[in-house]
């Protein structure tokens, strides 16, 4: 795979067994990317992945709730979480839950870097937890199987980082 092309498009890595880091470079200035990520009228135009998006709640400030619902051909799917940190125009930290996988939560940190040439680098780091863990009730230890599947997933993702997007 052409390294330069990969560099342009996306980079994926797994800094730890509970983390995925995705980098994307957008051909747009940081203010525009920030607006697309934070203005409900603009979010509605892309966040739904081609599906109609209803923004039920979006309190875009520390501690605020958000809930977006995608209405696709297969029915409605809800996503929600809380904002932990909002620093315009460069950083949002939020939790992310999907109705389809109850009991699991990701903590997403999105950072926008102005590349100075009209392009913007978005770095999304997502940490995966169960809601029990998030609530402070940590398990005594993950079982062997989970450890092994993480290790295998890491290898796959490491391979993808070099080639895919």
């Amino acid at each position: 795979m052409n390294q330069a092309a990969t560099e342009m498009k996306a980079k994926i890595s797994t800094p730890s067994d509970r983390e995925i880091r995705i980098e994307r470079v957008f051909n747009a200035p940081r203010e525009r990317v920030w607006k697309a990520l934070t203005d409900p009228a603009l979010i509605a135009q892309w966040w739904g992945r081609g599906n109609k998006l209803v923004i039920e709640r979006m309190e875009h400030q520390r501690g605020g709730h958000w809930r977006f619902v995608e209405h696709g051909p297969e029915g409605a799917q809800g996503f929600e979480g809380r904002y932990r940190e909002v620093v315009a125009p460069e950083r949002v930290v939020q939790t992310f839950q999907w109705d389809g996988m109850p009991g699991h939560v990701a903590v997403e940190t999105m950072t926008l870097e102005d590349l100075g040439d009209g392009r913007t680098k978005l770095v999304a780091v997502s940490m995966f937890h169960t809601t029990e863990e998030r609530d402070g009730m940590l398990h005594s230890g993950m079982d062997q199987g989970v450890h092994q599947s993480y290790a295998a997933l890491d290898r796959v993702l490491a391979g993808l980082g070099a080639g895919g997007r």
Partner: protein
Amino acid sequence: MVQYQATLDRSFGALADPTRRAILLRLGRHADASITELAVVFEMTLTGLKKHVQVLEEAGLVATEKVGRVRHVRLGPRRLEDVTKWITSYRTMLEQRLDHLEDFLERTKGTP
């Protein structure tokens, strides 16, 4: 244990492709689907889709069954572990969203 590792490697290999992850996601939400239905949904040729299903079937992630002239696909005996499924679903969705964000930014170029 070695055998177990080999099976895991195969299933993660099967998961390395976004289309295959999307097929699993869809099968997770619906009981089953025919090859033809999946080909329509993913806008692929029957041959292309069959190849993906075959990789998933070899990894035990889906099972197929021929009923009359229609081949049905459903989630296989080796269900993804919960956490893995969560991370896979999440990643697929995030990448799709970022693709759409990119398209949106291209489409609205020149606006403030």
